[in-house]
């Protein structure tokens, strides 16, 4: 007999062990055991289950062997999700330039309309404007010279620099000869 056949004999003897009878390893525990990360307080139960049930042992060894493929699938799925997300975003982009063209066309139309309006107004004769705004009615009051004329022709003298006013106007005492002496 060899060690291999002894192992086969032992595995055969532990094959009928029911999962429920061994207080089973759940999926989470099986995955941890396959990763070599048995939780200390579960160690005795897990070790007993793996030693006493070839189904458990096969499951954990199978999971260990499957780990690289699962890691690869996880990476591929992540790449696929990222790719799909990029595609979705790219799918919305073509609408943006379309809208840009639309807005551009609207803006160009508005500019053209304004330009047309301005050009049309510039082409009108001045006489028309003069007719619309008669000079007499609202002439420029600042530069028409009437203000200066009114000030120059004012009857009352400047009281601030007046040397001698009337009785009711006080004389300039700052420059008075009497205040000095």
């Amino acid at each position, binding site marked *: 007999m060899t060690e291999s056949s002894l192992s086969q004999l032992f595995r055969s003897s532990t094959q009928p062990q029911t999962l429920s009878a061994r207080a089973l390893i759940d999926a989470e525990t099986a995955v941890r055991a396959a990763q070599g990360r048995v939780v200390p307080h579960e160690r005795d139960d897990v070790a007993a289950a793996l030693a006493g049930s070839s189904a458990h*042992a096969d499951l954990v060894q199978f999971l260990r062997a499957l780990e690289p493929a699962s890691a690869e699938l996880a990476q591929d*799925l992540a790449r696929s999700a990222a790719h799909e997300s990029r595609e979705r975003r790219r799918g919305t982009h073509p609408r943006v330039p379309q809208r840009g063209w639309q807005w551009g066309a609207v803006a160009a139309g508005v500019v053209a309309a304004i330009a047309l309006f301005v050009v049309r107004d510039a082409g009108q004769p001045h006489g028309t404007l003069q007719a619309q705004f008669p000079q007499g009615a609202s002439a420029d009051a600042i530069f028409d010279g009437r203000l200066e004329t009114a000030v120059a022709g004012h009857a009352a003298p400047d009281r601030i620099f007046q040397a001698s006013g009337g009785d009711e106007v006080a004389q300039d005492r700052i420059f008075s000869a009497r205040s000095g002496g």
Partner: protein
Amino acid sequence: MGRINDPNHERLERLLADYGAKLRALVSAHGLTRHGIDADDVEQEVRIRLWRAIERDRSAAFHASYIQRVVASTVIDALRRAQVRATEPLPEDSDDGFQPFPDRNLGPEERASGHQHVEKLRSCLNALPERRRLPISLHLQGFALQEIADIVGTSAEAARKLVSRGMDELKDRLREVGAGDFDD
């Protein structure tokens, strides 16, 4: 119908199909089919469960441990179903019955001898000190030294010594009870 022509859908289908093929091969290679489960069924079930998870959230990132848990729960469910089936009465010479030796050409006498060997092995194992019995049992279940160390919670070197000395002791005991000699 539009979903079928979706290139993303096709890519996911391809990824899961590739993974399913690897999974199916490993289910068979690790002897899980001996426990009454069908590798094709396990593959299909895992693919369905993963597909549903992906459909729930296409942008979700799946960790390898999550995928492993999906596979583990699928296999455990399949093993439980197989054991429920196994409790149903089977014909005397059914292939699914307990066979200490995998050779199907064994006669009744040889099978009886095989049962005797199993009983002797069990009694010799039980006679081992407890600290050696568990590593030896794990070794006989096919676990590597590092795996035994991880499960038992010791170093690989300590596991190696426990297994080496334990196996020597087990063989001596088996020889003593007349279970035959061992070629190392």
